[in-house]
């Protein structure tokens, strides 16, 4: 089939006065959106003053495929995701889902579509004003359901002997309730006395017959005043034909041949009675009998009443060749398309259905991609058909297969919306050999709006083995907390990312804060550092220093004193923290029982002397602070000498 001007199919026009003189430039945003602007690349002429002030400078934001934004579409996306995951899991467990399982999944999809349609309809009927957008949505959903159910009949549900007409007739009955409309009109009209008087009485009967609903036709006929049950009456004759029409069903343990024999017998009887003049007195009944005979001419006459080529095709075949198999259907399509004006008259929906009747799966998917404006249907259909072995496989090394290709497109149409990210992750996880490639690309673009979300994303990455991404996420979160000056959170992300150099920076910052204010802002975190204190020296120091506080609080002064001394002597503490450390000795020195012996006290004194020489750290202090500091030092020196004296004496 020729494609109609595919070059012009997708065009957006941007209106901007600037573009008279400058080219249009564009840049991807994310998912399906672009930012376009007028610009120039003629670098030579730049920096010469240009007169652009007469036109405003615009940025144009362009989006497409945003159907998935509406609340109903959200429901569709979220619910179909569960079915999709179900299909994949089934495939993982048992290799390949069986026909009946696939049929079940297909029906699940269809019921989701149906319920979405119902919801839309309720909204549509509930709203006061005529809502064009809603109507369009309703059309889309009913169309998707129509296409899906046809594909289900033809591709998935086909019975062992390949007969499909019964299902197709049902499909017509369910989707095109023309006959019911007529019948309802007949019953509801009081103006005409009885239904039989109604102008739609015969159309109702014809359409019911075309849909193969023989028992209902009989019911209707009984309402006619001329209906009589005597022999040789045209009504009785047609009633008999209708009653005796054999209906094929695979489940009734009936062989095809047996049925064909019965049916041929019945068909011959119809033709015999028609030519025998049984219905000549009643032109309406004659028309009805022509339908039963499978007369091509009558089908043409009734198109006005009934509908489009596919309905006619199905009705015709129902009365002409009821045991036709799927593969033979397409021989008959052309004739009916010609009746309706030939190929050129076909609309997009016709093309999709025609491709389905021709059993051309690729064409169906292609046409759906092109015309439906949503990737939902092609993606899910291709996935199911992939398990039926109906989708062609990839042949190039670099190419992905159709199914994966569609999944990626579907997810990228969803990825504009933050709340869909778990859905996207689910779909990409089942994307064959390249799923980690796509997952990696997607995961790094999930906006990490909260700690909780980050944790969730990390869990998924860990499950999929994307360890680099985990690290990257931790770093991002760490930078974010640093920017907002939340040291504790930053430290915990640091530990997760195992980033020792950064942990040092944070630990130093925390110590500085303590030296200044005398308080730790994240005591609980430091208490629970555990083995991660070994990550960096500063962190170790921080942990030990906290231990000192705990010992002191528990009144284990001896131990506390030793720990403090170790911290000082090991030179692990940053220099500007020394004054605080030494000051912590003071209460220990002033206790009655001796804590430091001679050697230890001399060590402390040495530290104090080192500090005295390093004037640098006092430079940053204000005048008052410095005086304070000097006072403290003096005090400390006195206490240390006292302690030394005490130690020597004892």
């Amino acid at each position: 089939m020729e494609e109609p001007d595919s070059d012009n199919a997708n065009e957006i026009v941007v209106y901007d006065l600037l573009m008279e003189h400058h080219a249009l430039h564009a840049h991807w945003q994310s998912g399906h959106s672009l930012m376009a602007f007028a610009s120039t690349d003629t670098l030579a002429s730049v920096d010469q003053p240009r007169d652009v002030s007469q036109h405003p400078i615009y940025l144009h934001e362009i989006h497409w495929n945003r159907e998935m934004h509406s609340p109903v579409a959200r429901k569709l996306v979220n619910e179909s995701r569960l079915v999709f995951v179900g299909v994949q899991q089934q495939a993982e467990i048992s290799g390949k889902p069986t026909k009946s399982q696939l049929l079940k999944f297909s029906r699940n999809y269809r019921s989701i579509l149906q319920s979405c349609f119902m919801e839309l309809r309720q909204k549509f009927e509930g709203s006061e004003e005529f809502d064009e957008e809603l109507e369009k949505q309703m059309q889309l959903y009913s169309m998707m359901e129509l296409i899906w159910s046809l594909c289900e009949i033809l591709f998935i549900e086909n019975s062992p002997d390949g007969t499909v007409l019964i299902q197709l007739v049902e499909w017509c009955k369910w989707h095109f309730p023309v006959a019911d409309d007529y019948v309802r009109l007949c019953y509801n009209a009081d103006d005409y006395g009885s239904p039989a008087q109604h102008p739609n009485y015969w159309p109702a009967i014809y359409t019911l017959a075309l849909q193969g609903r023989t028992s209902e036709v009989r019911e209707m006929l009984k309402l006619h005043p001329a209906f009589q049950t005597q022999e040789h009456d045209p009504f009785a004759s047609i009633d008999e034909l209708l009653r005796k029409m054999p209906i094929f069903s695979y489940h009734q343990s009936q062989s095809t041949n047996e049925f064909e024999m019965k049916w041929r017998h019945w068909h011959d009887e119809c033709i015999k009675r028609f030519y025998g003049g049984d219905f000549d007195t009643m032109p309406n009944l004659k028309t009805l009998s022509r339908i039963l005979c499978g007369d091509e001419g009558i089908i043409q006459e009734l198109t006005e009443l009934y509908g489009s080529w596919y309905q006619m095709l199905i009705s015709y075949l129902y009365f002409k060749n009821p045991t036709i198999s799927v593969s033979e259907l397409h021989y008959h399509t052309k004739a009916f398309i010609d009746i309706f004006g030939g190929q050129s008259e076909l609309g997009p929906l016709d093309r999709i259905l025609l491709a389905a009747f021709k059993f051309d799966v690729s064409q169906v998917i292609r046409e759906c991609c092109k015309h439906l404006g949503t990737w939902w249907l092609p993606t899910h259909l291709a996935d199911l058909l992939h398990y039926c072995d109906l989708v062609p496989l990839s042949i190039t090394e670099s190419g992905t297969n159709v199914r994966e290709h569609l999944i990626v497109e579907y997810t990228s149409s969803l990825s504009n919306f933050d709340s869909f990210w778990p859905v996207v992750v689910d779909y990409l996880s089942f994307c064959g050999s390249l799923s980690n490639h796509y997952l990696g690309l997607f995961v790094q673009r999930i906006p990490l709006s909260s700690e909780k979300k980050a944790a969730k994303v990390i869990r998924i990455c860990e499950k999929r083995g994307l360890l680099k991404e985990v690290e990257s996420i931790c770093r991002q979160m760490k930078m974010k907390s640093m920017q907002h000056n939340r040291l504790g959170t930053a430290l915990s992300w640091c530990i997760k990312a195992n980033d020792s150099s950064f942990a040092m920076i944070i630990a130093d910052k925390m110590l500085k804060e303590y030296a200044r204010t005398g308080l730790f802002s994240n005591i609980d975190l430091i208490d629970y550092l555990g083995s991660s204190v070994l990550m960096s020296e500063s962190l170790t120091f921080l942990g030990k220093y906290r231990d000192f506080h705990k010992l002191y609080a528990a009144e284990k002064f001896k131990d506390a004193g030793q720990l403090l001394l170790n911290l000082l002597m090991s030179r692990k503490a940053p220099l500007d923290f020394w004054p605080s450390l030494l000051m912590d000795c003071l209460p220990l020195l002033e206790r009655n029982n001796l804590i430091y012996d001679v050697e230890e006290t001399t060590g402390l004194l040495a530290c104090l002397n080192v500090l005295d020489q390093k004037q640098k750290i006092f430079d940053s202090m204000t005048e008052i602070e410095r005086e304070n500091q000097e006072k403290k030092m003096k005090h400390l020196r006195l206490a240390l000498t006292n302690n030394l004296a005490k130690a020597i004496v004892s």
Partner: protein
Amino acid sequence: MRLFQIFAFLFSVLVIKYKDATDGIGFSSDEQNAGDASAKLVLLLLCYLANGFRRFSFTWPQFRVELFSTHFHKHKDLIHDVSFDFFGKRMATCSSDQSVKVWDLNENEEWICTSSWKTHSASVWKVTWAHPEFGQVLATCSFDRTVAVWEESIVENASSQLNHIWINKTNLVDSRTSVKDVKFSPKHLGLQLASCSSNGVVRIYEAPDPMNLTHWSMQHELLCKMSCSCISWNPSTYRYHAPMLAVGCDDPSNSTGGKVFIFEFSYALRDWVKIKMIMTITDPVNNIAFAPNMGKKHHVLAIASEKLYIYNLNPRLNGEHNQSSSEQSDISLQEVAHFADHNSKITRLSWNDFGTILLSTGDDGKVFLWMANYMDIWKRVGTIKNDSLNPFELELVKNVPSSGETSGQKSSRISFKRFTQTRGPPPEKPLEPVYKGAYY
């Protein structure tokens, strides 16, 4: 004689099939030379034999411009570049008016300009975001021969509102000519910055301490001997792929040879090595872009010149298990497609997040979208055109509030005629059956 007839028949069938297939997948046969065509024919034949090849090409769904909003932009001169952060939630624009603006997407999906400042003393060519794991960092390059690095800090002002302030961390002033392009390296290489200037020097800087962006050291200087216009890092994170850079030159003369250079970092030499020059492209190159890659073994490179070229780069990994021994990994180039649809030079390229769709802009004022089908055959899937306003639309735009709301909605989706032709609204399905037996 009979044998000959059979052969002739077979051949004609093949030719027809070939034509059929090529038409369907977007190659017009006149673009191919004869040798190429016969090679393709063999390939297609193989396809037929192996898989029962079917014509299969994807068509992009109809565009549906749902939101077509125009923002009144406060730049006083032409915008040169737009850059989005990794999440598409922030946008930086740079302009001839020497300033850079940063826009944030608020809860109502509107772009709000949160900061704007003068960056350089001349036109700003490019603006680019660093990966968020290094904080909120921007780099700009300008006609004034400098590259500047900016970091955001959030300050609370007197009325306890958060102010976004962009602090100039450093100015890299090594270039003696206009700096045309600047790009941050992929995140796994740390915080590196590559810039290229119009006298043909590519410089690679590194910030050893990501906490201290004031200190950048120039690591390498690569000479291209031709005016460089664009640069692209290979984003592949695959373990055995060495860091790679592609540089495009816009030297106007055709006689200077290939215009695209590919450099690779050699761990053995601790330096960048020129591993490839694409000889077939002799027209000036305006833009170059590697497709995002997270696990594919081959790279995809798009080049904007007089035509749009798409190349596959296949690194031959000889020393997969011994990284240090692979002195200089050999690379094979393969042209996948070239297009001259723009009928003029192509100026910009941009990939989508998944690296599946390529966007190209040309001097003809059109933007094209390109997409490969599952068989790696590229095809045009969409177009964005410009049009000067006609009086009616002028009114429409004038009425737009300056905050930037939806100005006009435009839907170009087809309507399904068959459904609406006679019956109006879509088929009604009675909720309660009128009588029994009519429905399931």
